[in-house]
């Protein structure tokens, strides 16, 4: 196939990019054949390709070996920074928004850390997520309620089970949207609701390995969180409203989500 005489139909010689892609075998078969044919006729291009191939091999020899002093571990401080970051983020958000009201209940957490451990880390996580995200004015949620179907599909996929968003409309709270969060044993979803006065509630949902039907209350400052587990799913409803009202709503949410609030009523 190598003709020495120039055929006017032969395409123009491959440029540097084509030669470079040829070295990496990134050209489609047809273009690859064209370059190969050209190299047979063009010693300069052939020398260039050879030089680049040698360069590639040498780079591999120079850098390709695994590092000699391989540390046997990497310090993964992930679980701790999450809390700290959440606390810190809350602190900044609060400071930024000038919500001194929220700062009080939050301060003990920032200084003292999480000492008291509730049997359900779920409630604490939900509570912190509430504290972190509800003061957000511009980005309270990742996906807004206007895209509710997408929100549900997305979070159901990430939590690997069908989710539904209960309506709290009869209590005056409408859905703002939701976001994905790291939970204790996998991903968690947070749905946010808001009433006309701007007061916010969150419903925190995550998978839970054990299955118990306890219904408990977690308090932190002026915030209350009712939480329960149903069918390997943990739920937590958080908000700065009265216990009685939040309890009624939680019972409603529980039954709307297929739970059996009768068992703990």
């Amino acid at each position, binding site marked *: 196939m190598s003709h020495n005489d120039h055929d006017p139909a032969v395409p123009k010689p491959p440029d540097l990019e084509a030669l470079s*892609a040829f070295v990496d075998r990134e050209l489609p078969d047809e273009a690859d054949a064209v370059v190969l044919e050209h190299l047979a006729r063009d010693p300069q291009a052939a020398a260039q390709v050879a030089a680049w191939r040698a*360069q590639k091999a040498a780079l591999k020899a120079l850098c390709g070996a695994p590092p000699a002093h391989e540390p046997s571990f990497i310090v*993964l401080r992930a679980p701790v920074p999450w809390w700290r970051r959440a606390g810190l983020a809350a602190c900044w958000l609060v400071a930024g928004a000038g919500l001194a009201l929220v700062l009080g209940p939050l301060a003990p957490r920032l200084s003292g850390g999480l000492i008291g451990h509730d049997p359900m880390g779920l409630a604490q996580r939900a509570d912190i997520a509430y504290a972190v995200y509800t003061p957000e004015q511009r980005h309270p949620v990742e996906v807004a309620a206007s895209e509710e179907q997408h929100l549900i599909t997305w979070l159901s996929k990430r939590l690997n089970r069908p989710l539904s968003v209960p309506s709290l409309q009869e209590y005056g709270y409408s859905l703002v949207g939701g976001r994905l969060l790291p939970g204790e044993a996998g991903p968690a979803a947070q749905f946010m609701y808001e009433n006309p006065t701007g007061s916010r509630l969150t419903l925190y949902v995550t998978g839970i390995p054990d299955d118990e039907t306890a219904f408990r209350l977690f308090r932190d400052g002026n915030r209350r969180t009712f939480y329960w587990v149903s069918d390997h799913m943990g739920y937590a409803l958080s908000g700065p409203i009265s216990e009685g009202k939040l309890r009624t709503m939680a019972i409603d949410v529980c039954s709307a989500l297929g739970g059996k609030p009768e068992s703990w009523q």
Partner: protein
Amino acid sequence: MKFEAEVISWLPQLRRYARALTGDSAWADDLVQDTAERALARWAAFRPNSNLRAWLLTILRHLYIDQLRARREIAVDDESAPWRNLEAPPGEVDGLVLRDLQRALYCLPLEQREVLLLVCVEELTYQEASVALSVPVGTVMSRLSRAREHMRVLLIEGPTRKSAPLKVVRNP
């Protein structure tokens, strides 16, 4: 859990790349540590079924550029650059002395060095490199060919090249 394990499985490659990129193994180890931490903290931003390695490389790149900027503000002096103190690698491959190659590698601008390392050493496809560098594939191709040519010229010209501009004064 599975995500963490996957991130950890890429650490040796990330470390190798970071060392080649920075020419400084302590800096590289810090970079990899920071990258892993950031990846685990931002796991929610990762789309499943997309390329985890390219995503990690992107994080590493952003961190490196940030840190490079911070260091440059302190030390502008090229003589103190980390690769000046690198131990010269012994050996010769395909007619190229590795010492010269190393010197040439760190003479390249960052944009050329990173694409060259990603494709030649880390063996990323152009597609993967385009994701890792957040540029179109066409840019990967043109940058890569320029990097190769730049490198070839540096290797031909040899180490005296750097002082050449100082020799303009000539006695007629």
